[in-house]
């Protein structure tokens, strides 16, 4: 009922500047439910207000986790409200009473989507997934299945399935994280290799990673001092003069 820009503005301040001052915050239920149903960034923002209502005002939201699950799409790693969303998602998934299939579905979906994520999001999501494993040891089959079937022609996990219970996530393995171990960013690759070993007991602290920006990451790398700089040893012949240069095939120096 509102234009998108206004929706966003309202939802951004809702949880700390509007809800605490209302006599009956439950009046916002309808508004938030509608906003949550819109999808995209607005849904992510509505999550914050909904959380307060659920947490403090006993709102019962049917199929909340199913809805949350369907919210996950490739854009969550790219939007501005990434930090906020994952902070809340961490809260929602912190309960140890959640069924294993649900958490496994979340883990699988998050890591599948991580295949398109930028490095700053990857640095946050990998510890996030590790934390989920720590809270729900039943999900560890995703990274450790000693007596499973040898060869599978297909990933059992069904990405398109809307409901987490039908997604068959528990039968799958986290090949996505294994792929990310080959990521070009050294920190990401290191973080992903953590899942090769059995995890330590202590949870990682996410607070510093949630708001990580690409520029900060770049700055950190640039400021690293190296006492020794390795050099290319292949003698060059020109700008595009390397062996099998891709550029020479497609670009001309004109």
């Amino acid at each position: 009922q509102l234009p998108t820009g206004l929706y966003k503005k309202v939802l951004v301040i809702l949880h700390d500047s509007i809800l605490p001052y209302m006599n009956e915050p439950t009046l916002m239920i309808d508004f938030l439910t509608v906003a949550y149903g819109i999808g995209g960034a607005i849904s992510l923002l509505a999550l914050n207000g909904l959380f307060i209502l659920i947490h403090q005002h006993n709102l019962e939201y049917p199929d909340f986790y199913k809805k949350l699950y369907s919210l996950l799409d490739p854009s969550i790693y790219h939007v501005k409200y990434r930090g906020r969303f994952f902070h809340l998602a961490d809260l929602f998934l912190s309960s140890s009473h959640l069924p294993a299939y649900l958490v496994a579905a979340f883990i699988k979906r998050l890591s599948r989507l991580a295949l398109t994520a930028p490095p700053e999001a990857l640095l946050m999501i990998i510890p996030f997934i590790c934390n989920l494993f720590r809270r729900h040891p039943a999900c560890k089959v995703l990274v450790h299945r000693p007596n499973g079937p040898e060869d599978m022609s297909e990933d059992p996990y069904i990405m398109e399935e809307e409901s987490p219970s039908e997604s068959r996530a528990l039968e799958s393995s986290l090949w996505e994280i294994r792929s990310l171990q080959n990521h070009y960013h050294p920190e990401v690759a290191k973080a992903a290799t953590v899942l090769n070993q059995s995890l330590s007991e202590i949870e990682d602290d996410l607070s510093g990673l949630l708001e990580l920006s690409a520029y900060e990451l770049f700055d950190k790398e640039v400021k690293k001092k190296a006492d020794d700089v390795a050099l290319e040893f292949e003698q060059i012949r020109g700008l595009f003069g390397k062996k099998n240069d891709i550029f020479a095939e497609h670009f001309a120096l004109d």
Partner: protein
Amino acid sequence: SNPFEVKVNRQKFDILGRKTKNDVGLPGVSRSKAIKKRNQTLLKEYKEREKSNVFKDRRFGEYNTKISPDEKMIRRFTLERQQNYGKKNIYNLNEDEELTHYGQSLAEIEKLNDIVDSDSDTEERGTLSAELTAAHFGGGGGLLRKKASSEQQEEEEKPKSRKELIEEMIAKSKQEKQERQSQRESALELTEKLDNDWKEIQTLIARKAPKSERKDKAVEKPKPDDYDMIVRELGFEMKAKPSERMKTEEELAKEEQARLQKLEAERLRRMRGIDEQANKKKPSHVSADDLADGFILDKDDRLLLSYKDGKMNIENEVEGEKDEEEEEEGGQEDNEDDEESEEESANEDEEDSAANSHSDLESDLESEEEAARNEEQKKHKTNENKSQSAEELDPKIEAAKAELPYTFAVPESYETFKSLLTGRTIEQQLTILERIQKCNHPSLAAGNKAKLEKVFGFLLEYIGELATLDLPELRTIDKLVLPLYNLCQMFPEAASDSIKFILRDAAHDMEEVIEVKGRATFPGLDTLIYLKITSLLFPTSDFWHPVVTPAFMYMSQLLTKCRVTTLEDVIKGLFVCCLFLEYVSLSRRFVPELINFLLGVLHISLPKNQAQGYAVVHPFRPVGKNLELLLVSDKKDLDSWQKQNLPLSIVTRLKETSTTEMNHIRLSCLALCFDLIKKCAVLYESLPSFHEIMHPIRILLKQHVPVQEYPAQMQEWYHSALKELENKVKHYTPLVCEKKKPVPLKQYTPKIVKVLEFGRKQASSKQEQERKQLIQKHKRELKGAIREIRKDNQFLARMQLSEIMERDAARKRKVKELLGSLATQEGEWKAMKRKKWKN
């Protein structure tokens, strides 16, 4: 002391160096001491145990807290005064108060003043003068007495009283003392004077002495013989040593191969990121034969300045490259050795590609003669020089070469550096750079290293400037990369720093733009060239590299943050994609941004409202503006399209081109995109989730791309890409964690510690030591206290017993007395009775 009171603790073994504390004891003495002490303390307490008298403190205001101490003192003082007031001097205490100095009463000090100050005559401290002994003690032996008597002879003439004698003696001794003092003072003065004099003279002596010595030596030294000199010279002369034999070509090749293998192995290790610490050792990229003059003889196909039949032989290299291009374009290439014809064909090609180049060429030809002399040459000239025939070029180059000086100082600022290079041909620029390098080689002078390091920065800046021109001089850059590479090999640190600096600037600019506008645009061609140069200078396959990793980050930001709104942006983005592919070509690292971007590029080549089954991510959008950027619907353009290499300069002057050409460029971009997808597929096939990564692209290719409308050549690209995607086997094996090393159980085997010092507690941590000491002390004290208490009790028991015995004895005595008196009484009474009875 009494040997019977001494108790000796006999030692069983004598141990050398051990100090024994308790080998001798005096039990009697210590016991009596203890008893005495107990008598004074414990016994007193014991005796007074039933006394109830209390000591009362009647001092004024002693327990009154309301009065401050000062006031208390004053009140007490007044009370005391009042008490004393009536009494007149009889038992007066404190009437004349003592004056003190440093706590000592002045009166006493005054008394001590008369004592002889023994410090003043240090020499005779402790000994008494003869007169003094004589006077006080009546003298020592006979000798002394004689001497004394002789001195006293005259005095004996008129006898003096003892008092007079003593006074005289005192006066004498005082006089002597004064004399001694004055003597000492004068001696001191004299030595000081002597010192000063010596100092004055010393300088004179010091200067003269070595001179005179040298003179002496010169005189003494015999002149060396001619013969001797020859003999010595022969001794020192260099002898011809056997040098290493020249290596054959095979050996050289083998060595080279071994070197390359070693370097490759090192690169692989860095790529895997293992032992990042261990590979700290210097990368030996410089061969053993290298003279470290930046002149690399590794490969023969290097661009070298050489002459052939009196002509410069530079063109070969350039033509080689052109050959390749021509081959790709499908142009006929006749491999004639004749330079002229090749050059001409190259000339023709240039004319084909750049429509406006012909007129430029003409005008430049005319101005060539004056330009050779005139330093203010135009930038076009360098561009066109290449395409000129050799005959025309030769005399000019030779003339210009004659002008080039052979030594160059290193330019201090970028401006001088630029003025040095601008207006020269590429070859001249190269020679200048080479000469700068050689003339200022770090081994020649101390400051040269810093200077040459600067040159690297200047050169980079110059390249950037060339790239930002309206008509980028990419050919020049192509050549200038070589000296850049050489400089980089010489100074890796400086090179990495300057490239890092450029990258940081670029990233910073982008961040600022994002903050202000909320979105970024692709940077200019110079930044792209810098990124390309980075891949030439540094190994891009390392797990972590000080320059390459930030470059990766920057490129990732380019692909995710920059909006794609025009065709230039697409070309730039595809350029960055190529860069990414090149960077990871050896290490096969996974770059999500690359796949995303390629997907986005495919997406914008489709007609609107087709996005189904896949999701594009930032910066592309499923709906909205800037869609259909790469969509070509003109049938004629589609048919007339030929695959062409995208000229880089197009990113700056795209607006000038016609719509047909634009469409052709679009199609070329699409072809490039297909090729990149194919290359990605080859690169990433080993990733476990290859199919998931490529899933959206596959869907898009299979379901949405209008293959039938594309020209045949494009269809070829498309099919090869799709084939590469399809023919990968799907193969999943469940993940298994690496096995953990089992943690060993705790066992009761003794802990074996090396003994460092015998007889001492083993050094543990300081806290542990302190703790042990405390425990020890506590034990000792406890034992001592128990012993004391026991002894006290024994003492008390003894006292009580003796008391009881005393009491008993007294009673016995009294009873005895009583009984005795009674007995006598009885006896007396009986005696009386007997008397009575007798009577």
